[in-house]
C-alpha cells in the first residue's frame, strides 16, 4: 500500500511524497491530495518520487490530473527523483519527453 506525505515548504511550494506502490488503487488518494493542495491555495507542487517503489499508468494519470489542476490555478506541478522503475513507466508512454524530472524537491522550482 501507499502512504502519502504532504507538506508545504517555506517558499510555499507543496511537497507530496508517495511512499510505496502508486497504482490504480492508490492513484485516487494522490489525486485527491493534489486537488486539496491546490484548492487550499498551494499552486506550485512538487511530487517527490524517490520513495515510490512502483507506479502504473493510473499513477501517471493522477499526476497529469494534478498538473491540470495546478496549471489552471496559475501554478505548476513538477516531479523529482523518480527511481529507475518509475522512469520506465514514464518512458512507456513518452511522458518522459514532456515532463522533466528535477533532481530534488527543493530545487524543483529554481528555474
Amino acid at each position, binding site marked *: 500500500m501507499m502512504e502519502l506525505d504532504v507538506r508545504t515548504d517555506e517558499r510555499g511550494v507543496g511537497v507530496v511524497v508517495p511512499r510505496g506502490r502508486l497504482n490504480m488503487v492508490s492513484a485516487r488518494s494522490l489525486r485527491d491530495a493534489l486537488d486539496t493542495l491546490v484548492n487550499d491555495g498551494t499552486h506550485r507542487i512538487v511530487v517527490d518520487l524517490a520513495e515510490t517503489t512502483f507506479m502504473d499508468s493510473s499513477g501517471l494519470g493522477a499526476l497529469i490530473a494534478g498538473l491540470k489542476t495546478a496549471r489552471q490555478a496559475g501554478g505548476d506541478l513538477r516531479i523529482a527523483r523518480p527511481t529507475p522503475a518509475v522512469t520506465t513507466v514514464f518512458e512507456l508512454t513518452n511522458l518522459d519527453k514532456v*515532463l522533466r524530472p528535477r533532481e530534488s524537491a527543493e530545487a524543483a522550482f529554481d528555474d
Partner: protein
Amino acid sequence: MSRRGPVERTPQQAARRLVLIRVIVVLTAVLGVNYVAWRWLFSVHWGAWWIAVPLVIAETYSLVDSLLFGLTMWRLKDRGAAPPPPPDVTVDVFITSYNEPVEMVMRTARAAKAIRYPHETWVLDDGNREEMRLACEAEGVGWITRSSAWTDRPRHAKAGNLNNALLATEGEFLLILDADQVPLPEILDHTLGFFTDEQMALVQTPQWFVNVPESDPLGSQAPLFYGPIQQGKDGWNAAFFCGSNAVIRREALMQLGVSGYVGEVEVGVHRALRTGRRIVTEARRSLERDPSPHDNAAQVAAALDKILYDIGRARRELARGVALFDVTYRFQRRLASIRRELVAADLHALRSDLAIVAELEGLAADPDERLATVDEAVLEQLAQREWSPLGAVETVQALVDAVDVDRAAEAQPIMPLATISVTEDMATCMRLHSLGWRSAYHDEVLAHGLAPEDVQTMMTQRLRWAQGTVQVMFRENPLRQRRLSVPQRLMYFATMWSYLSGFAAVVYIAAPVIYLLFGILPVQAISTDFFIRLVPFLIVNQLLFWVVADGRPTWRGQQYSLALFPVWIKSFTSAFGNVFLGRTLDFAVTPKVRREDDGGRPWHLVKPQLVAMGLLAGSGVIGLVRLLAFDQGSPLGVYLNLFWVAFDLVIFSVVISAVRYRGFQPAGQPVEQPGEAAPEPRPTAPLPAVRRPVPTHRGERR
C-alpha cells in the same frame, strides 16, 4: 435457437484443418490473380470503356477482398477452452446505458451481479436518471454518472461514459457490457485466464442475440465474424474489440490514455505556436502599414516583437528537445507578463477588441473533437482575420490556453477510449495494438443480447458501424500505423476495405442491365477462356467460405453485404464529409424502441434496392425478348447475364423479407436465462432495440 460452444478439436484435427484452409487460400489467390490479370490484359472491351473499366475495377476490388480474407484465414487460431482464471484479481463490471428502459438495464445488472468470479458491478448511467439510481441501490450495484467536469464539454458518447467510469473505479480488469447484453455466470471464469499473459490487453467474446429467429431475416447474427474471422485476426494478434462482451486490462487502457495525452498535447502545442506566429506576424505588418489609431503604437509594436521572439524561442527549445511542459510553462508566463504590461499602459481604446477575443476564446476552447484533431481550417481562419495588436496578443493567449497541457476543453486530460470515431472500440483496439499489447478472441457465447427487430433500426445501426469504421480509416489509416505489424495493418484495413463493396455492387448491377438492354458487352468475348478462368475461382472462393464456416450459416451475411449497398455508399460519403469537410455525420437518430405496427411496411427504406431489382428483372425480360423475338445478342451472352440477374435478385430478395419482418416471436421455446430455472417471459413493453455501434463485418462477411 442455439449456438454451440467452442468446437472441440484435437491438435491434430486443428492442424489438418489449417493445412486444408491454407491449400484453398493459395488456390483461391492463384486462380483469382490469374483471372483478374487476364481480365486487365486481354479481355477489357475498351470500346465500351465506360462500363468495361468500372467492371474490371469492381472485379479487382473483389479479388483484393478475397485475398484479404485468405490472409485472415491463413493463421486461424482456435484457442479452445480458456485457461483457469487467476485466483485473486479485481474486476469491475461496467454496464453502459444511455436511455434504455430501467427494467432492461436491471435485468443485465442482476445477471452481472450473479457472475461467479468476485467482482463489483456498476451501471454507467449516462442518462443520469433518478429511477435508475434507486433501482441500482435496491439491487445493490454501483451507479456512476458523469462527474461535474463534463458539464459543457464534449461528452464523446459511450467512450466518454467509459472514460468517466475508469477514473471512478479501480479494478485491474473491466468487463464491458452493453445494457442489453445479459452475461452468463461463467463469463469471467472463462476469460480472465488469458490475462496470465502479461501483455494481454483484451479478450473479446461473441455478441450473440436471443431475439432472432433461425432464419435471421435482418442478418443480426454474425456467425462468420464472431468465429473464423475474429479467430483469423487473432492469429495475427489483431482480434478486434467490439464494444461489448469484452474484458480489458485497466493498465493497458490507462497507458493508452497517458500516451494519447502526450501525443495530443505535443501536436496541439506545436500547432498553436505555428499559428500564433502567423497571427502576430500579420498584426505586426498591419501595424507598420497603417499608422495606428492608438497612441501606444510603439509600445504595442515592441510587445509584438517580444511575443514573436518568445514564440521563436519556444519552437527552438522544443526542436532542441527541451521538455514540453517546461517550455509551455515559461512561454505562458512570459506572455502573461507582456500582456500585463500592455494592459497596464491603459490601452482602453482596445477594449472593443477584447470582446471579439472573448468570442474567439470560446471557439478555441470548445472544439468538438480532441485537440489534436482541431481543424486546421479553424486555426487558419483565426490567422486570416484582421487583428489589432492587442487582439493578436489575446488570440495567442487563447490558442496557447486551448492547447496547453491541461487540455481545458476536455473533461479529463486522460481519455483512454478513443473519441475520434462513433465506434470507439475499433480505434481503441488499434491503438492498443500499436503500443504492443495483445488481444485474444475467445469463441464462446458468454452473454445473450438483443438485436434490432425492425429493418429501420437495423439499417441505422449498420450505417453507424460503417460510418465509424470509415471515420477511423480516414483519421488513422491503419496502413500508415508504423507501430503495427504489416499483417495487423492489413487486418484492420480488410474490415475497412469490405465497406467499399457498396460501390462494386452498383457496377455488378449495372453490367448485366446494360448488356441485356443495349447488347453492350464489357468483356471482349464470352469465350471458353472466360469460363475456364472465372468459374474455378468462384468455386474455390465459395469452398473457402464453406470450409472456414464449418457449418455456420453464411448466406445471410453474403446477401446483406451486397444488398445493403446504399448503406455502405452513404457511410463513405457521410464519413468523408465529416472528416474532410467538417460536416456532421448526419445520421438519423436511432429509434429507441421497436416501431409500433401501423399496418404499413417501410418500403421506402429499401427503395434503391427495389429500383435495382426492377431494373434487373425488366432488363432480363427485354434481353430475352430481344434474343428470342429479334435475334439480337448471343444466346450465351444473354443466358449468362440472365443467370447473373437471377443471382442478384436472389441476393436482393433479402430486403423484402426484412421489410416484411414483424419482430421476433419466440416459437414456443423458452428463452434461456442465466441463473434462472424458469424461463422468463419476454418483456411486455416493445422491446428496446437500441444498439451501440460496434465496428466490423457489416451484414457479415469479412
